[in-house]
Structure formats: C-alpha cells, structure tokens
C-alpha cells in the first residue's frame, strides 16, 4: 500500500467534563472509501460498524419486509459456503458479525481478533458481496419472520407501535412495520432479495466507524477488500413522510390486564438551531431518569406505572416527539391525564432554572461515559457521520448543551410541545377511555 494515497487527518480532542480523549482519524482508502478510525491497540481486537443509509424504508412497492428479510439472510450462506459452513467458519475465527436494519439504516457490526483479522474480513466480505440467498435459507428465515409477525399481532407493545405508526404515516414506509405483513413476506422471492440488497447496500450511502487494534494504513486496505466490490449507487431515498394525526385518543381493544399507551406529535429536525434546547427540554420532561417530570408525577408520586418516558425522534423523513406508558386498565386514564397536564405545563410555563441546571450537569457528565468500549465508540462515530456532524463535534457537544438558556427552553417548549395535538394510542381494555372523533 502506498502511504501517500492516504489522507489521514489525526485530530486530537478532549471531551469537556471528563478527561476522555478520543483521537479520530479520517481515513480514505486507496479505492476512495471513507471511514473514521480510533486506533486503540491495548486489546488485540477491532470493532467495525458499517451503516447504509436508507434501510428498510427503501423497500420496493409491494415488497414490504424485503430489506428486513435480506438483512437476516446475509449470514445464511455466502460464497461457496452454506449457512452452517459460514457459521462454523465464523466461530472458528471467534469473530462476531451482526446484521440489522431499521427505518433509516441497515447496519453491519463486526468484532474480530487481530491474530486472524484478514480471514475474518474475507469471511465477512463474502456475506456482504456474495450472499447466496439459497431457496432453503429463504424458506427457513421466511418462516421465522412470519412467526415474529404473528407474535407481534398478539403483543401489546408491538400492536401499539404499529398502530401509532399507521395512524401517523399511512402508506409511507414509516407507517408500517419493517417486518412486512404475512402476505408480503410470504410472496418474497430470491430475486426480491437480490433487488433489495442492490437498493440498500451501495457505496453512495455508506458510513464506516472503526475502533481497535488497527492502523490507518491497514484499515485502508481492509476497506477496499471488504467493501470495494459493492455497487456504486442504490435506490433513491423515500419522500418525506406526511404526518396525518391530530390530537385525541385511539383505543385498540385487546384483552389484557395492563393497557399500553404510545403518545406523540410532530417534532423537530436534528439540524434545527433549536435542537439542543429541545433535547435538553425533553430530558427534563420525559427523559428516562427518575428526575424527569413524567417519571416523578406518574410513577414516583402516584405509583401509576413502572415506567414512562418521552423522546425526540428526528428521523430522516419525518420528526416526532414520542412517549410511552403502561398502566393497569383501570388506571391508564389517570396516567394519561397526568401526562397531558405535564405536557401542557412545560409547553406553557417552561421549566425551572434548577431543573435546567440539573439536566445540563447530567448531560455533560454522562456524555464522556458513552465512550466506553470499542464497539460503542465505533457506533457513535458512524452516527455522527450519518448526521453530517464534524469530527470536532465530540469536543464541542457539551458546550452546546451548556449554552442552552432558560429562555431557550421556554421558547422551544412553546414551539415543539403541542398539548392540543398530542395523540394517545391505547392498546388494552382501558376503563373510561374511548376513541375520539
């Protein structure tokens, strides 16, 4: 490998609250594939995280579930190996490969030892470049996915997620489960798998993060070996998803003792100037900690639930503020009333200086703790690239949190929180609740 071909810019940076140093190198392989690398030689293994933007939302018309099934099939036979031979080769190397897909991205997560890195990468290459999609594997994994779809139809948490998505986004891919339906999955063929792979796994939507016992030069070679033979381009990204819900309640009757409610309305984009203020505001309203308003009011003071939370969901083609709670059928109505009241209070009054200060110290202190292992750091770096954040984001992120003022939170709460548009989808036999309109 010719060193001059590398454009490796090593930027040292220190996080603010703790002394954590993450030295990210931007690597471009001889073949032009970009990656972010943190070289960490103390443990002889490497974590590799690959993402393809677009994910399951790139399912072709009428082929809902194709990307999900294709992703599951990548490790079910590749090159001249069938599924069992592939698994045996992987285990013999003590490597691990994970393949996963969500609404907006397909991911490949790998860990491999330094001592057999080349073989581990060669094996992974066969899965990414030469998957077989044998009929026998297709049949087998199809049956597994169909079983999951059937189980989801009887699982209150899955029902509530699917119902909210359908009401919010209708026919857009965001409006249905990435698993597909019994009908669409049963109809998928080997050709559909090849088509789905070509739509999703292409170089024009590729992001890579690597952490571990590997140099920039070695990584350059690895990237070309592993990913060089991927197609240059894939399918066009889906259109923006129109949000179809207004405020109210939708009850989905299901005979079970505890009702599960999902609630939300439209949110805020990741690149909005107010995003950080909104993010801090949500931590105070419904972040996962016991300190959050929703947790304090619904669980700590009233014992109405084991858990309640809200979160910002800035997706690629739509933005939501979402939350979830579960309470016994005769108590869910009260839980919803309390949530509505807290939503209204924060929207109209903002939060207190004390709450803001505590949220900031929590967020700034917790941030360095996220960098706690090769895999997690690789994940963070891929996420940053997909959100188009610069390498120095890690160094500036806490300052952005610190810069949020009480006035910012008040303004953004009034803008982002819409008590009148908050819609609750409730699965169960909730007492005293009926579908509105």
């Amino acid at each position: 490998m010719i060193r001059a071909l590398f454009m490796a810019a090593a930027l040292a940076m220190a996080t603010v609250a703790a002394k954590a140093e993450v030295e990210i190198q931007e690597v471009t392989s001889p073949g032009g594939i970009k990656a972010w690398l943190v070289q960490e030689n103390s443990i002889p293994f490497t974590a590799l995280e690959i993402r393809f933007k677009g994910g399951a939302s790139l399912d072709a018309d009428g082929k809902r579930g194709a990307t999900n099934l294709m992703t599951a099939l990548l490790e079910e036979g590749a090159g001249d190996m069938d599924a069992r031979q592939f698994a045996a080769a992987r285990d013999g190397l003590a490597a691990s490969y994970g393949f996963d897909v969500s609404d907006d991205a397909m991911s490949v997560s790998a860990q491999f030892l330094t001592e057999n890195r080349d073989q581990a990468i060669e094996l992974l290459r066969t899965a990414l470049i030469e998957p077989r999609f044998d009929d026998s594997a297709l049949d087998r994994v199809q049956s597994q996915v169909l079983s999951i779809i059937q189980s989801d139809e009887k699982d209150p948490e899955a029902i509530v997620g699917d119902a909210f998505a359908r009401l919010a986004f209708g026919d857009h891919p965001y409006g249905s489960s990435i698993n597909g339906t019994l009908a669409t999955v049963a109809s998928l063929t080997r050709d559909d798998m090849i088509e789905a792979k070509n739509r999703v796994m292409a170089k024009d939507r590729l992001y890579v993060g690597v952490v571990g016992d590997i140099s920039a030069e070695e990584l350059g070679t690895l990237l070309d070996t592993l990913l060089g033979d991927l197609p240059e381009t894939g399918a066009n990204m889906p259109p923006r998803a129109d949000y179809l819900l207004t405020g109210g309640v939708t009850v989905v009757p299901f005979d079970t003792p505890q009702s599960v409610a999902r609630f939300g309305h439209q949110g805020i984009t990741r690149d909005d100037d107010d995003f950080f203020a909104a993010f801090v505001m949500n931590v105070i309203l419904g972040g996962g900690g016991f300190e959050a308003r929703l947790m304090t009011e619904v669980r700590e003071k009233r014992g109405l639930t084991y858990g309640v939370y809200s979160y910002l969901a800035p997706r690629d083609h739509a933005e939501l503020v979402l939350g979830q709670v579960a309470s016994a059928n005769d108590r869910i109505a009260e839980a919803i009333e309390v949530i509505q009241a807290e939503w209204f209070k924060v929207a109209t009054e903002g939060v207190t200086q004390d709450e803001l200060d505590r949220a900031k110290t929590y967020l700034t202190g917790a941030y360095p703790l996220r960098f706690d292992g090769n895999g997690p750091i690789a994940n963070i770096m891929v996420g940053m690239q997909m959100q188009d954040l610069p390498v120095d984001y890690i160094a500036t992120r806490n300052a952005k949190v610190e810069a949020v003022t009480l006035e910012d939170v008040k303004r953004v709460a009034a803008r982002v929180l819409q008590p009148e548009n908050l819609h609750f989808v409730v699965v169960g036999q909730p007492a005293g609740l009926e579908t509105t309109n």
Partner: protein
Amino acid sequence: MRRLLAVFGLTLMALPAWAQDFVSTFSLDNGMDVVVIEDHRAPAVVHMVWYRAGAADEPPGASGIAHFLEHLLFKATDDMESGQLSKVVAENGGTDNAFTSWDYTAYFQRIAADRLDLMMTMEADRMRDIQLTESDILTERDVILEERNQRTENNPAGLFGEERRAAQYLNHPYSIPIIGWKHEMQQLSMDDAMDFYRTYYAPNNAILIVAGDVTPEEVRVLAEKHYGVLEPTVDLPERARPQEPPQRAERRIKFEDPRVAQPYVIRTYLAPERDSGAQEQAAALVMLAELLGGEGATSFLGRKLQFESQTAIYTAAFYSDVSLDDTTFGLAIVPNEGISLQEAEDALDQAVADFITEGVDTEALNRLKMQMRAEQIYERDNVGSVARRYGAGLTSGLTVEDIQAWPDILQAVTEEDIIAAAEMVFDEDKAVTGWLMKPQQDAEVLQ
C-alpha cells in the same frame, strides 16, 4: 468449503489464555469482600454493591420482598431525602439502577472515576440507615404491581414461565417468581421490608465491586473509610434453603392463553450448578448446552430440526451455571407451521437421543473452545460485564479462585465429559415439560 474451514482451523489453537491480572480482591475487617477490576482507557467507573440475599431468601408468604426492598432503597435515609441518591448521581453525570435475582440483589452507579468517594458515601449510607414512610410503601407497592403487570400479567410467556418454575421446585424457594406472587405482593408491608433489610443488608453479607479507572489501593482507602466503619449483622443466618426431595415422576404442563400467537414446547431438567472447588460437571453442561442448542446454524438441534428437517423454526438448549442451589438445564422447540407440539416434542427427544449416540463433533468443540478463549480478550473491552460475572459468582457460593479457574476448567472439558453430562441430566423423572398453546377452541376455529 472444506478447504476454507481447514485453513481457518490452523490458526485456532495459537490464542493464549489471558491471565486475569486486571482483577484484584481483598476483604475489609468487618467481612465485606472487595473486587477491583482495572481498565484505565477511560476515566469512568462502575461502582456496585451486591448482597447475598435474593428472592430465594425471602420468608414464606412474603414473596417479592427482596425486589420490593430494592425499589425502597431509593427512598430516604437518615442523611438523604427520598430520591436524593439518584438525583445526586444524575447531577454528577452518572446513571444508577439496581437488580434482583433469586440469589442476589445488587445496586450500581456508572460515573466519572473522580466521583467514587461520593458514590461510596451514599451507598454505605443506605446499607444500614434507610428510613421509610407508610406512604413510600403504598406508592411503591403500586409501582411493583405495575411492573408485574408489564413483565408477567401482560405476557403469556411470562405466566407460563412462572407455572413451569413452580412445578420444577416443589420445596426449594426457587419456585417463586422474583417479582412475587401477585396476592402476596399486595400485602407486602413496612415490617416485611425492614425485617429483610436489617437481616441481610450488612457489610458481612455484601460484596463491593469497582470496575474501571481505579487502582486497588485507591479503592481500599475509600472502602475502609465508608464501608469499613459499618456494623456487621452478628446473627447473619446461614443460607440453608429447603432442598428438593427426589423427583419420582415426570411433570407436564399445558398452558393456554388466547394471546399466544406462536405455540412452543420447553422442557427443563433439575441440574447441578457450579459448586466451589467442583465446577467440572457444570463446565461439561455449559459445553453441552452450546453444542446441542447454542445458535441454530451451528448447534446439533439446529442441524437436525431446522436444517436437515424443517420441523422447527427455532430450537435452543440453555443452562444457568451460576446458582447457589440446584439449577436447571433446558430445551426448547418452536415448531414450524403445520407441526403439532407433540410432533415437535417427539422430534426434540429423538434429536437429543441422536446427540448422545453420535457423540461430540470434535471440530465443533474446538471452535467453541476457541470462542471461549477469545471471550477473555473481548470482555476486557467491557469491564462492566466482568464486574457482573464476579458479582453473580460471589453471591452464588463461588470464590474468586473458582471464578478465575473457570476458563481453564471449560478448556479441559472432554467429549466424554459432555456425553456423560448429557446422560446424567436428561432424566425424564427430573423433567418439567411445558406446552404453551392457544386455547383449543381458537385453534380449531383457525383451522
């Protein structure tokens, strides 16, 4: 493809076992054990206190009290207001939580390393000095009932699991659910909580584990300052739980629920656990579970039932090796469309018999041992998981020496050991076989 496998095979044996030189242990004068796991790559620590007390240590009739008490430990002490500990942890950028099992209850915080002193101040405070109100009891009892709703009442697989466990253990308190039986949870009182607390929450019944950017010397100084001054429980009861009588008949359960979408069969056998100084048989059972029913694409059950025949969409074997008293070894099969539970169970039985007849696949065993050696490298990247391994082991009757000897004991397991373990554990008279089903009427309507 054979060639490829053989080439990969050559490099397998080179990997050295890594010494566990990043783990140190010592004890305080009052009997508290301390484990320090070093990882200096990032300035963070996990601080954990484990108690040798869990659901299987509860008095009869108060099922769920160990877990309820775990919730109540986040309320007030003589020095802290209710909720203050979590609040202070969050204000310092940390996260905290706790968990309860049959053999242990544990509390932990993840936080910047320079806050360890503060964490120990608070954790030591709540070991001896919680101060509960009746209102805490009533409100938090509602919370755990909702937790039970979420985990169990809303989930037929959860209810099914409770039935199977209760059938497995006729006499040993492993028969109760950790969350508690609902009718007993509804009656849990302040006295139940405080009796359990005063007995078991003491330095001589606790293990401190600190993992991350610390040295054993630093931990010793802080631990002596905060935990070393606490009074031990002098009359700490021996953990001698009622043991199982010999099982003389197979036990079978059919559990029907309209919320079941995918029927399946699970069978568990009463099995020996890892005992201090005698972990060899348990090691063979660990290998047996992996080879027989680890991942579908590599296991024997997967090959027979998911690949060579399409009887099942999922198969598994599982074994809980860390346990104070007798544990279970389990088998599961989720039948493919059109296969009845009886057919699935029969095919499972046949596959297990075939495994014993055919013997262990040497290459598969070598691959498994390679993976287990590699795990010693991978786990250095996650000292939190090392901390949990030590905590669970030390609260389940094992010593530090046992835990450190375990990787070598796994490597020493032979093919004969595995078959002998299979012949020992697969005894119909130790089995509980459960069928999870839709109500028969529904099933007929669907057909």
